[in-house]
């Protein structure tokens, strides 16, 4: 490991820690633009929100031990995810073990969130939990499948146009799975539906809510950077870059895909659980069918 790789890892981890709320600020600005208004005063707004929440009184209707435990666990896991991904993109090396570690950590965080929601005694929270569980189970299968499919496409690739097409299909499907996993419209069912108010997070207040929002944003950004592991590897195989520059480039790419997601989510409405299941199923099977079709029918 050379010096620049060593430097790039801590920088990347710091970016992971400080960037997500900033990106959310940018997202709010972009949304406001689409809606013909000004939006928050600065892109630091989400940071202000979180800092304010942390300074506020906590009123909890559930045992605080559960909440603190789950929140701190999920934050720890998110940070370790950030570390793992930073390590991976700095090495510019596609290691199947890293992909699998990332996926396992992600699934663990999702189930931690589910426990967090379900401890709440509020009926809105319970309904929200059932909805997100439905989507999660379906989507996690897709997320894992497409991450592995992408890895497989890359590893069997012999730089032919067909192989690039295969990689592109798998990456697109992965990007969709990531989008759904980010819990954005039309799939932000856990805290969505006006009738469910803030759904799962309705009972949180003060610092608990602040940390929850932070960890949620962090998770979103980490999710957005998962396809970047593969992009980084593809980049490293075609052109040589200084690891620091490569790492920065990847963060810029992850941020732009994050903002692209933001624009998409501003353009559509919210789905319904049964509709969402239908659409997600359809898209995933279609993606797999296309991939297989190209793989089998286009024989170079």
């Amino acid at each position, binding site marked *: 490991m050379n010096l620049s790789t060593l430097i790039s890892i801590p920088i990347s981890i710091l970016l992971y820690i400080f960037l997500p709320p900033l990106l959310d600020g940018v997202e709010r600005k972009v949304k406001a633009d689409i*809606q013909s208004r000004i939006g928050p005063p600065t892109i630091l707004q989400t940071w202000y929100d979180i800092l304010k929440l942390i300074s506020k009184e906590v009123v909890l209707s559930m045992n605080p031990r559960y909440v603190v435990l789950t929140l701190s666990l999920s934050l720890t896991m998110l940070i370790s995810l950030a570390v793992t991904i930073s390590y991976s993109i700095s090495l510019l090396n596609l290691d199947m073990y890293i992909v699998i570690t990332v996926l396992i950590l992600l699934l663990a965080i999702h189930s931690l969130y589910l426990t967090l929601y379900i401890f709440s005694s509020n009926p809105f929270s319970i309904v929200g939990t059932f909805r997100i569980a439905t989507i999660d189970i379906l989507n996690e299968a897709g997320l894992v499948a497409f991450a592995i499919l992408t890895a497989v496409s890359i590893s069997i690739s012999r730089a032919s146009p067909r192989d690039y097409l295969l990689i592109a299909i798998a990456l697109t499907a992965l990007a969709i799975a990531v989008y759904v996993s980010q819990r954005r419209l039309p799939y932000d069912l856990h805290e969505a539906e*006006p009738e*469910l108010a803030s759904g799962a997070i309705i009972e949180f207040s003060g610092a608990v809510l602040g940390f929850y929002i932070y960890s949620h944003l962090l998770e979103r950004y980490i999710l957005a950077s998962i396809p970047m592991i593969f992009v980084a590897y593809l980049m490293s195989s075609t052109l040589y870059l200084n690891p620091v520059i490569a790492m920065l480039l990847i963060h810029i790419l992850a941020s732009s895909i994050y903002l692209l997601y933001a624009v998409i989510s501003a353009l559509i*409405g919210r789905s319904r659980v049964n509709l969402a299941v239908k659409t997600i199923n359809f898209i995933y099977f279609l993606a797999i069918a296309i991939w297989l079709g190209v793989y089998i029918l286009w024989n170079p």
Partner: protein
Amino acid sequence: MESLSTDNEFENLYSYLKKISNRFVEEEDHLRIVVENEKLREVAEVLSKTEGVFLRTIAASDERSVNGFYKMYYVFGLDRIHRNIVVEVPLDAENPVIPSIADIVKAADWYEREAHDLIGIKFSGRILHRFVLPDDWPENVYPLRKDYTVQDLVKLYRPEIIAKAREVEAEAAIIIPIGPYHPALHEPEYFELYVRGEKVVGARYVGFMVHRGIEKLAESMKYDQVPFLAERICGICGYVHSTSYCQAVEKALKIHVPERAEYIRSIVLEIERIHSHLLWLGVALHLLGYDTGFMHVWRIREQVMILAEMLTGSRKTYGLNIVGGVRRDIDRDKVNKCVKVLDSIAKEFKEFVEIAMSVPQVKSRLRGTGLLPRNEAASLSLVGPTVRGSGIPRDVRRDYPYAAYKYIDFKPVVRTECDNMARTEVRVEEVFQSIELVKNFLDRLPGGGIAVDSWEPEPYRFGIGAVEAPRGEVIHVIVTGRYSPYRWRVRAPTYQNLPAVPIMLRDVDLADAPITIASIDPCFSCTDRALIINIEKSDVRDVPLVALSLKGSRLLR
């Protein structure tokens, strides 16, 4: 208007009614007959069997001080011949009992509950409990009886409030207030939904939070002050209420409003309809999660608000009406500005509504949800876009023309799909129709004065004023007094439409419940000025899981 003789069915009805009672008055817009207590059910049966007759309102009145008895007024509308039939039933002052007609005329249900609670009329055949008033309201105190003044009532019920607050807190300390202070709350009302999985199997409306005692207050106010009270029944369609009140008084006292004032009223009514429908569409899009649509619809709407302020002096079209006319004139300058703004709204809205309706989630969640079959809509006497979305062209503007609608040709917007999409389309279409109407009215605006110079109140005259509000028909029944209304009965459209909600919610997904309830455009401040509760205990139910309120306010994300 068709004459009576051409319509055989109605002629028969008329002769039947005249046979049943020899005490009847025929007026320009209604036929009033006095019916004995025992014959009421028979009359109700005959009326409800006649095609095209619907129950518009029921008013109970304490007239002991005038003629020694309580009185019930049943107002039935005959859409096709543009007339009302008012059935008057005098009741014994000592023991006011009347047969219930709720089993014959479904829509009478809430009116009877309300009359029981506020005036103390007893209905044979039904056991009614306290609904409108708080549970611990003193027994045998009926606020709308003339025994009590407004000041008396204030003294009656104050002291137990704190104890009550403690009680409510104790009952659900663990959970965030779900009740009327449901988090997504916009108005302090809620529906309790009974769900199995994600399917709604039953619904219950729990209302009465916005009961402000308006009808009683009016008895202590002067004729010229009541329009301002009437406006504040509802902040969205306030002008409708003041117009309706003024028309009722004008009809009762035979005041002829100048033509120019009629036109100005119609113009403001249509402007109010545009703003209300745009508001509804924005909120509906928000309920469907399409916040960008919500923002853009409200951006377009804001121009209407500026127009409204320019014409009336208040953003909420408040303060324009007085009995006998209006207070502000529209000059040439304002006419031009109106036409210009309306044209630009029509263009922008057309462009945008097509985009909004093409959003996949909006399409898929509106189409086929919240079905309200035509026959159910007819039997519940529903009104407004709700009934027009189910294929019945009921519209007060055409059926019982008032103000300047008398002078123009008018065709209601109707859709026959009976679902949420149909009701949405009716409203969208009506926005364009209203813009055309306003332009038409502005074009034809006649000269002359805007209000009658003076008029004298005459006691104990009866008048009906009806206006097509954005949500449906608003109807005010008035019995005049010497200085202020003797009895003033307000019936808002939501009052009539809410009983349809449990039908629409049958087998709807939980996620679609808010938009389904919102599709009747409920306005609870209208409904609760004197209030109601509906316990439809017909459906299977599991645990009451979600109480839900409307017009959610989680707007910025």
